[in-house]
């Protein structure tokens, strides 16, 4: 072929390709985006999803609806698998309970893989806490070292659940013997402590906040790098010689997309979410819901998840013990 012609052809091809590349991000989003929530309506995750969806919609570069779709099942694993298998075209994203999913991954075969999710942002995080009956016999977490019972009873919500693992790891480090009293829901597990059938329970602060505020339960341990100013007497794991537990077990609410999401689509979504979180309207809504956002961008979120997964892996042994076949 004539070298001049081939050069023209190549230039033309390059021009066409670049035009196409330019065209792609400009054309997203063209239709509705599904924001999948792995829990039923009425719960914390659903509230967050429904709160932020309209604001993401508002800050998208083109007009498209962000529709919340509830897909509860297997502790949000069904939703996580759904997003994992969806086409990475930016029209399906999900809100993730990373701690819960990471814990489940340790206990069973799962069809999702948190390492491969395209992380877009963190919406919030919640501190884990340990609670006892406010007017009960235990005044602090140290009381459990006194061995007043051969085995303390811990009220749980699934043995492979994040909160149970938190408790198991903590008690293992403290050398406390215990046995689980399992329930199907948070309400029932809290009731067990209120009745005195169980001695202690673990939870994420948001889900038990109302019981603390009403005075029924009191905190004995707060998992963070510094004490909560509202509860200056409640120690953090670092105070008791377990600083590695300060932040590794908290629950984070993340937004993610299927693996392999194109960089331009990811950019659009990341920006829209960031602007949504910064929107004063969103701040109003979260204040009314008494929830606090804690935004991290996509890169920071990915780093966070890697760290979390590593620390969860280190607790795999604890989980195996909990689920072991031959319990004595």
């Amino acid at each position, binding site marked *: 072929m004539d070298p001049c012609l081939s050069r023209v052809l190549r230039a033309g091809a390059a021009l066409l390709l670049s035009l196409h590349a330019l065209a792609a991000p400009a054309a997203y989003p063209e239709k509705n985006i599904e924001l999948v929530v792995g829990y039923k309506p009425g719960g914390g995750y659903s509230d967050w999803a429904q709160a932020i969806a309209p604001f993401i919609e508002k800050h998208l570069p083109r007009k498209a609806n962000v529709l919340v*779709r509830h897909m509860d099942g297997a502790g949000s694993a069904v939703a996580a698998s759904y997003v994992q298998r969806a086409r990475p075209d930016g029209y399906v994203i999900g809100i993730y309970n990373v701690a819960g999913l990471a814990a489940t991954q340790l206990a069973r075969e799962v069809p999702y893989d948190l390492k491969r999710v395209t992380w877009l942002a963190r919406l919030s995080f919640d501190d884990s806490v340990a609670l006892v009956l406010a007017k009960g016999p235990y005044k602090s977490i140290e009381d459990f070292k006194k061995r007043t019972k051969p085995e303390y009873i811990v009220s749980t919500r699934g043995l492979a659940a994040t909160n149970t693992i938190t408790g198991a790891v903590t008690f293992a480090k403290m050398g406390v013997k215990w046995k689980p009293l399992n329930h199907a829901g948070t309400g029932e597990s809290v009731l067990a402590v209120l009745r005195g059938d169980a001695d202690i329970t673990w939870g994420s602060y948001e889900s038990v906040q109302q019981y603390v505020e009403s005075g029924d339960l009191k905190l004995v341990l707060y998992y963070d790098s510094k004490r909560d100013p509202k509860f200056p007497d409640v120690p953090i794991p670092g105070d008791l010689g377990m600083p590695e537990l300060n932040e590794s077990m908290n629950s984070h609410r993340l937004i993610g997309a299927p693996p392999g999401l194109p960089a331009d689509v990811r950019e659009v979504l990341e920006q829209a979410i960031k602007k949504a979180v910064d929107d004063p309207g969103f701040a109003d809504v979260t204040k009314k819901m008494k929830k606090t956002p804690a935004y991290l961008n996509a890169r920071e979120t990915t780093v966070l998840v890697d760290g979390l997964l590593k620390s969860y892996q280190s607790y795999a042994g604890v989980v195996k013990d909990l689920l*072991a076949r031959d319990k004595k």
Partner: protein
Amino acid sequence: MIRITERGVFSSLIFLFAYVILFRTLGLRADVALVPKMAGIILLAFSGVQVLMDLFPAVRKRLTFLNRNSDGSIGGEGVVQEQDEAGDTLFARYRFFGWVAAYIALIYLTSMIWATIIALFVYLKWINKESWLMSVLYSLGMALFIYLVFVLGFKLHYLL
């Protein structure tokens, strides 16, 4: 003398279910397996007897006390509809099941609304032998109702 009937197949399936469940309890922790094992063993025993009765008329005659069909039942629960069925009743029944299965396949492959339109139309025109007008109106009407109530009303867009 063994007599294979639809009834025998049904009770055999229940027996099979009990067997499968019991089999799966072997891989479970002792306490997790406890209650299902107990229930499973009892069901295996009972359904086993039922299978024998259904397949062997001789056994049935001997165990009449297990086979009462008294009219003192609640609302017909427990009363066996014994009539021997004509061939076309059986055909109609399995055609019905086939239609439901096809409907579900359509839901999976297309969407709820489209599946409903197609499935209802097929049923009305070819199974029920209704008129063209009725078939079209009914299927479209139903689909419209579902659209208005579930998609627009409850915002369940995935039905589309």
